[in-house]
């Protein structure tokens, strides 16, 4: 309960801060909007030349891309800048500040602020998903929608875990923030349909790394109804990655020796 109050306080602080730097907010919202449009344009151009990619029609693909965007916007809005700054703070020693706070360090680090621009754009991503569903004539029931929502939540947990793990590497090496940046490249794969992965790519990106299932599972729930196998898979993957992330973070914490000053 007190954690919720802390989180609400940081949310309030972030909104006040955004109101102070309105131009910044506008600029970054535009940046995300531009990148989202670029990805949608890629889909549009490809489908000008073919009717199906790995068995997915144009609007099915847009639904997939929209779902991937939705998860990524939430991650950007809630956690990205906190975890990006975490690796910087570990190196500079400012990380002490979080350890001194009376709460779980990971919680304190991960919820320090929100990025309202990412959260605003999540509505755009949601709009893309709804538009695609409308064009496909989908009428998902309440249960399907609930499953979709839960799967998005699992997706956020998976992204969060990957970010925590990459940022935690800074406890051991100094190249941590470039590894955090690498996260973007990794999740480019989540805009692709699972059936497109064959051979070694199938093993690496579908089975070993969670980047494909994270977007494909919720998207196919909307498209083809609830599939228990996908749901269990996604849930297990989310749990496993979160556990590993917390473990790595805590091991790193033991190594943390602050900075000399």
């Amino acid at each position, binding site marked *: 309960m007190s954690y919720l109050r802390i989180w609400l306080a940081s949310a309030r602080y972030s909104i006040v801060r955004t109101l102070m730097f309105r131009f910044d907010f506008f600029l970054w919202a535009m940046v995300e909007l531009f990148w989202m449009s670029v990805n949608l344009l890629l889909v549009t151009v490809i489908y000008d030349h073919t009717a199906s990619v790995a068995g997915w029609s144009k609007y099915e693909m847009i639904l997939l891309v929209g779902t991937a965007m939705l998860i990524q916007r939430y991650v950007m809005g809630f956690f990205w800048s906190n975890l990006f700054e975490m690796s910087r703070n570990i190196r500079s020693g400012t990380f002490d500040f979080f350890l001194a706070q009376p709460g779980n360090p990971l919680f304190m680090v991960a919820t320090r602020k929100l990025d309202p621009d990412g959260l605003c754009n999540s509505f755009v991503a949601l709009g893309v998903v709804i538009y695609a569903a409308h064009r496909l004539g989908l009428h998902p029931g309440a249960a399907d929608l609930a499953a979709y929502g839960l799967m998005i939540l699992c997706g956020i947990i998976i992204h969060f875990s990957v970010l925590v793990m990459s940022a935690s590497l800074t406890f051991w090496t100094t190249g941590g923030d470039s590894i955090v940046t*690498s996260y973007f490249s990794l999740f480019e794969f989540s805009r692709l349909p699972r059936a497109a992965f064959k051979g070694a790519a199938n093993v690496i990106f579908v089975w070993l790394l969670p980047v494909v299932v994270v977007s494909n599972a919720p998207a196919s729930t909307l498209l083809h109804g609830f599939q228990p196998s996908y749901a269990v898979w996604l849930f297990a993957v989310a749990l496993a990655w979160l556990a590993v992330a917390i473990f790595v973070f805590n091991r790193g914490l033991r190594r943390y020796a602050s900075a000399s000053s």
Partner: protein
Amino acid sequence: MLTFLNKYRHAFLVGLQSNIVYRWNFLIRAFFSLFQLVVVFILWGAVFSGTDRVGGFDLPSTITYFVTLIVLQFFIGAFNEDYQISEEIRNGLINQFLLKPVNYFAYRFSIFTSARLVSGTLMLVPLLILLPLYKSQLALPPFEAWRILLALPAMALAALIQFSIAYCFGMLTFWFLEIQGFVILSMAVEALLGGQMFPLDLMPQRLLRIAELLPFYYQMYFPAAIFTGRIDYARATSGLVIQAGWALALLALTQLLWSRGLRRHTAVGG
């Protein structure tokens, strides 16, 4: 003239060494370009599974286009020049150029060319090592001498355009505290209109005609398209003229921003 060149020869040598300073930067970039190539293989492989030709080209020529793009990127692309210039303005490092007979643009450009020469050559190493993996996927157009003769100047002009754009973004530091937002915003535009997301000739013809008039078309797509046979002789020659026009216009803009910016610049400390 000789002393003039000699001056920038030293800057050129500094650029060679800067590759050692930014070696992690290079390695990470190289790694992700290869990663990007995997995305290209998977996506376009899936696209071509339903059809033989997309926009008149088969899968191997499309893959060749993207591989060419990566090579070009490491030879002529601007990496973090905008941030470096921005840093030098903020730290006051540019103050020394105001007192010495060294042109800041020429100094920076010399560093840029030498750094790219090294990064381009280095990038060929992993691409050549991995070549057996994707060799069967490549297809170059039948050899025509004019392609090489036109692609090389197109490459040089593209490098000048890329650097000038990065330089202009660096100059924005005179007016704004942070340039990162602008840089990432323009990256999206450049990725799209420069042909890094898809070969531009796949766009509807009307839009392509508009894109041809913009500078982004010439910073990456144009030389790559000449090399890989995506544009014909007539289009290549007329394109070269527009490209030269953009290079000159952007060059003029860099000088304008520099002189305007310096008026706002207050050198503090020393």
